[in-house]
């Protein structure tokens, strides 16, 4: 078992921490969720790292809403953690190769991709960077296996494979809602019953976090062209208002004490 540091800004990071703790790892977390008042996460992270009693063997990063924050956080991790700490960075809003290029010890950086609900996934996407050392990739593989997730290697790009499909379904559903072709409930119901999707795309977006969805879409737009990956206007509006989904109590739906749910937009 290892000591694991999980750093992130949304439900994905929280889920990695939960799954790792459930697998018996010692987990410490540093979260900067969107609804918190944030003053430069990297400065806070530096204080946090200085106060750590046990230094982590593995650091997992999932900062998805803001690439500037991701850059700052990964830089702090590389600068302050021991040289043999493995850096598992999310290749969702930047490629593993790009992130590895931000730091001095690029060879210990290995990418990964997944999305909530991570508990239900039996696989994790393993995304080696061009700079990743073979033994770092092996350690990454073994670590994900220890979480009960089978690592499946994919080519290094932004958004992974299944997360990329899901965020685009969320975006398309958000466009449909922006265009007012149907209610949020009817869009989700139609996709569950008409195509057997495991959950409605709008409810799924709320679960992932709309700021996270938008961060991934914007990164895809940077790499593959903004015309295809342009976030829906309503998605942008909700993110600007801090209504990022379940975590904020409101997104496409409003979440009351009982859990859910009425469409808001």
């Amino acid at each position: 078992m290892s000591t694991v540091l999980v750093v992130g800004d949304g439900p994905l990071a929280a889920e990695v921490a939960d799954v790792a703790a459930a697998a018996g790892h010692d987990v410490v977390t540093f979260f900067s969720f969107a609804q918190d008042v944030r003053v430069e996460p990297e400065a806070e992270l530096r204080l946090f790292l200085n106060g750590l009693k046990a230094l982590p063997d593995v650091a997992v990063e999932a900062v998805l809403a803001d690439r500037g924050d991701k850059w700052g956080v990964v830089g702090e991790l590389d600068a302050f953690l021991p040289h043999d700490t493995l850096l598992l960075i999310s290749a969702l809003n930047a490629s593993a190769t790009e992130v590895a290029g931000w730091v001095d010890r690029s060879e210990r950086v290995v990418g990964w991709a997944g999305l909530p609900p991570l508990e239900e996934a039996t696989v994790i996407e393993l995304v080696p960077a061009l700079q990743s050392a073979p033994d770092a990739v092996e350690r990454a593989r073994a670590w994900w296996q220890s979480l009960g997730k089978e690592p499946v290697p994919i080519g290094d790009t932004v958004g992974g494979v299944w997360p990329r499909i899901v965020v685009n379904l969320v975006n398309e559903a958000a466009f449909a809602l922006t265009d007012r072709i149907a209610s949020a409930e009817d869009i989700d119901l139609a996709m569950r019953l008409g195509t057997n999707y495991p959950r409605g795309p709008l409810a799924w977006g709320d679960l992932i976090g709309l700021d996270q969805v938008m961060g991934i879409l914007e990164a895809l737009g940077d790499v593959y062209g903004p015309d295809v990956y342009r976030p829906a206007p309503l998605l942008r509006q909700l993110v600007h208002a801090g209504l990022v989904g379940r975590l904020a109590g409101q997104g496409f739906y409003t979440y009351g004490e009982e859990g859910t749910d009425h469409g808001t937009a």
Partner: protein
Amino acid sequence: MSEERLHHIGVVGAGTMGSGIAQVAAQSGFDVTLYDIGEEILRRATGRIAHFIRRAAEKGRLSADEAEAAIARLHTTTNLEAFAECDFVIEAAPEQLELKQELFGRLDRIAPAHAVLATNTSTLSVTQIAAATGRPERVVGMHFFNPPPLMPLVEVAAGAMTSEKTVQVTVELAERLGKTPVRTQDVPGFIVNRVARPFYLEGLRLLAHGVADHATIDRLVREGGRFRMGPFELMDLIGLDINFAASRSVYEAYFHEPRYRPSLLQQRMVESGRLGRKVGRGWYEYGGEEP
């Protein structure tokens, strides 16, 4: 029109969708008149429907008496004039605009003034079909999914002139048919065929960009995203030609919106005849020998 007056349903077209809809309506207690152009098509359709209804009875979903009563409620005709008694007509003819407009023009003259005329189109404009009638406020989209007896969803699509009353009547009818209706505006692809586009198109882009092979993409979508099927196995099931045509039609209908741009890779698959399960090969090989 009040719901109580809705007893008799006319169905136009005895293909898979039309006969499935007729079966659901007869099983739900409605008198049904099923129209098609040839006696032979109708004979085959009624044989199929009776078989499915009796099989549903064998599985205990209804009693043997109920099954025979449902079969007795189903009538067929090659004469559209028989729809003069129908309270609600569901058209499930081939997806050709001119054919549907011609049918709706005739239905408008034949069906009672109170009758709603619904189209089961999945790709054409309800508004454009309604414009062929003198009662566009009583024309509506009623999109069933294949096969209608098993798929619970019905998209109720309001055209530009469709009245709220017509939408309500259609939603209530869908519920009496044991379906779950959702309301949508008359936009290309309605909800499902539009919102589902990225499932296929993003899968195809991932393949085109070399991120993973098709089998790996399918596996990750199933075991990571927990979808029942991945995009490539689903394309094989639907038929690559059908799926490609759907993408193309949505792309054209939205005036070449880049998000819906069809895949060149998929076009080459279609051109090479690898259409999926129905021909034994698509993204995957089915039975037979490996090439």
